[in-house]
């Protein structure tokens, strides 16, 4: 069965990013397919490359990044939400004239249509938020 997941909150502040991560792992463990994970609102901050939590804490952004690599996941960050919150990849940073960028490997930036497409193409759409 094919799933699309939407995540509305950033890492740490709310549990939704943790819950969604565990849920995605369980989907994959059962042999189902994840069509797309769409990060919206503060959820875009799950794609930050600059987090350095205390050594005994989880690094949620890296866990997403590694899960993406391992299972070739399509992790999509909403561009409009990302621009509001200051999350950008190298291309977007260049386009905007910034020296720095802060998007971790394994994510890509795209538009809201990707969320609707996910809803259409998937058998189940599940939302995690506040």
């Amino acid at each position, binding site marked *: 069965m094919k799933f699309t997941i939407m995540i509305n909150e950033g890492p740490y502040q709310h549990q939704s990013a943790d819950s969604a991560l565990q849920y995605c792992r369980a989907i994959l463990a059962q042999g189902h397919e994840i069509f797309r994970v769409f990060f919206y609102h503060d959820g875009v901050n799950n794609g930050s490359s600059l987090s350095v939590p205390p050594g005994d804490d989880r690094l949620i952004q890296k866990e997403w990044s590694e899960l993406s690599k391992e299972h070739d996941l399509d992790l999509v960050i909403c561009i409009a939400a990302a621009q509001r919150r200051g999350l950008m990849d190298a291309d977007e940073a260049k386009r905007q004239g910034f020296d720095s960028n802060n998007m971790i490997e394994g994510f890509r930036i795209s538009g809201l249509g990707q969320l609707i497409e996910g809803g*259409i193409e998937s058998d189940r759409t599940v939302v995690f938020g506040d």
Partner: protein
Amino acid sequence: MATKKFMFVNRKAPYGTVYALESLEVVLISAAFEQDVSLAFIDDGVYQITKGQNTDGIGQKNFSNTYKALGDYEIKKLYVSKESLEERGLTQDDLMDLVWEDEDDDWAEKPSIIMVDRSEMAAVMAEQEVTLSF
């Protein structure tokens, strides 16, 4: 692409959080995919479509007029919870006059707001194929 029944559930007041604004951005995009779109306004979500919103005092953009454009995008099923209005001391008169134009009826303006009680809202929710909450 297939056509599915999409519902956008709005439970939160505007301006206090960004959800109402960014939800509306998704709704507008969904129009381009020609899906069967409904919106639900329950609990504090009913404040999103009150008339007379004035944001001069809070430094945020007033985006309430965008709801008036939904009809032009063929988004014309806005289900509003009767009980939610009542609890908040509001009536339908406090809501914006949201309409769509029926091209099969000489472009007559028809109301987009559909007042429903809880059991009717539950029945509408039960029909949906994709439900997005913000």
